[in-house]
């Protein structure tokens, strides 16, 4: 564990050093993140001028969902997208060989080798948004604690989905477009899932679990349960289901990766 943390520190310090060669990029990333945020908040404000609720969520409640969305997309940009695109490159150019020959878990290496600072502004702004809405809604410590656990479950789900998709490159080699799939998946979580039409609700819950990524952490903080009518579970039951689902997806991603590796043929010289 300590070994892995040490390696993680080296991974991130080296890849940040490589990225910091391009400082203008960071400035642009901050501006883009701010612009996106202002746009999203503005759209929501506009909506709430005439409406009291969005899918049953009040304005600050919907803002918690938006906060989680911004936070997750920041996380995706910082770690996931960076590494996902490298998996594809590794497979195509055959440099995956070097990773597989290191005495370290290849999934750990491939998932964490790179990080980019460009998503950090989003992470900060997402947290700020949740804190601001939380202050308006007067969240207590327990709300924050449950929110953090739900967020962790959401991140684990997003990661597992993302890595399983990346593992497909062993078979199909060219799967760069998966990055877009990942973004679209997140996009489904921008607003409370109850604001979507019924079909989409079903889709975002059972097909791609976007609802669990943003709406669920928000609602455990707020203390609602919008899933009851779909899953028929109480709040605590639902909580357990989501955590179990996240763990199950993670285990699946691990096995799937090992399974695909058996089919790795390695790009020829």
């Amino acid at each position, binding site marked *: 564990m300590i070994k892995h943390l040490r390696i993680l520190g080296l991974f991130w310090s080296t890849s940040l050093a490589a990225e910091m060669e391009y400082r203008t990029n960071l400035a642009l990333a901050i501006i883009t993140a701010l612009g996106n945020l202002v746009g999203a908040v503005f759209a929501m404000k506009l909506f709430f001028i005439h409406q009291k609720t969005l899918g049953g969520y009040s304005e600050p409640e919907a803002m918690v969902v938006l906060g989680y969305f911004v936070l997750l997309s920041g996380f995706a940009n910082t770690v996931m997208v960076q590494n996902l695109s490298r998996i594809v490159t590794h497979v195509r150019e055959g440099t995956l060989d070097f990773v597989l020959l*290191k005495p370290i878990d290849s999934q750990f290496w491939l998932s964490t080798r790179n990080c980019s600072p460009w998503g950090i502004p989003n992470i900060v702004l997402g947290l700020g948004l949740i804190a601001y809405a939380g202050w308006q809604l007067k969240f207590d410590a327990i709300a924050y604690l449950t929110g953090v656990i739900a967020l962790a479950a959401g991140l684990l789900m997003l990661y597992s989905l993302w890595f399983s998709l990346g593992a497909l490159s062993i078979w199909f080699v060219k799967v760069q477009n998966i990055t877009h799939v990942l973004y679209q998946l997140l996009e489904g979580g921008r607003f409370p899932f109850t604001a979507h039409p019924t079909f989409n609700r079903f889709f975002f819950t059972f097909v791609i679990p976007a609802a669990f990524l943003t709406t669920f952490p928000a609602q455990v903080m707020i203390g609602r349960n919008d899933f009851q009518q779909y899953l028929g579970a109480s709040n605590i039951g639902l909580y357990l289901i989501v955590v179990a689902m996240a763990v199950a997806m993670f285990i699946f991603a691990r096995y799937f990766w090992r399974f695909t590796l058996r089919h790795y043929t390695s790009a020829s010289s």
Partner: protein
Amino acid sequence: MPIIEAENLTKHFRVAVKQPGVWGTLKHTFKRKHRIVEAVKAVSFTIEPGEIVGFLGPNGAGKTTTLKMLTGLIHPTGGKATVTEHVPFRRDAAFLKRITLVMGNKQQLLWDLPAMDALRVNAAVYEIADDVFKQRVDELVEMLELSDLLYQPVRKLSLGERMKTELLAALLHQPDVLFLDEPTLGLDVNAQTAVRRFLRDYNQTHGATILLTSHYMADITALCPRVMMIHHGEMIHDGSLTGVIERFAPYRELMLDLEEPTDRDVIAQYGEVVSVDQQIAKLLVQRDVLKPTVQRVMEELPITDLTITDPPIEDVIARVFSTGIVTEDSPYPEEVAAGHDR
């Protein structure tokens, strides 16, 4: 106790076959035809600790596939491999710490960063203590004559410097077994010599076992007392480098300086004539009758000088791989010839 053992090692690949043209592409998109390529066919050999073995074969002969099976990157279709008493494909940490793979056409160093950054990551991954790390880097820097190049971004290095840095990165954990796939690919003559010298020194100082593939015969003749030749996935020779000449070219070349122009037919009595040009004649003589033939030539022909040479090893090997000509005593002539027809 051999450090590398391969027993009937076999690898088949399933590859999609595509016809050229638009129609071929359409058909390929919807219905793929596959065929099985037998990249490596039941290859067996053993290598003892400390040996340097050259692995020869034309492109597509199955060299890299064999190396990848021995390093555990790909799963063999059949047969058994044991390296440092481990089954490679399990890729146990204990196994991976004892081997390394260097590929001349792929690099593990990060393009934008100094090599030192990647080396530190490797040190952490291989759990090398700081003082040991420093000592090994110093030693390898000296052997490879890299001086302070480790602190420059990799993209600023020349190809030769980059290869040497790759070698450093690959050897930091002091592996016992080195798999080198074309380590001198694309390097100029000086850099090639430097890499060769380094590999020989490394083998001597650390007793490391080296299995090396190369298209440059100079690499092989300089480093490898033993060569394995693979052709169409089959092992056609495993033995000493001089054995290659004896087995595949059991003749020597005689060059005669004659006092006066001599008739071709006269010279042909002594061996197979390669060329006759005025007073210079070249002929091939079977090894087993070399001595009596030379005696007869000296007694019977008006010569001023006589030179005996081995046919160049490059030529011998190139001829084996390109024409499949194998001598009569070879146990594999049919297979090689058949392989060539395919």
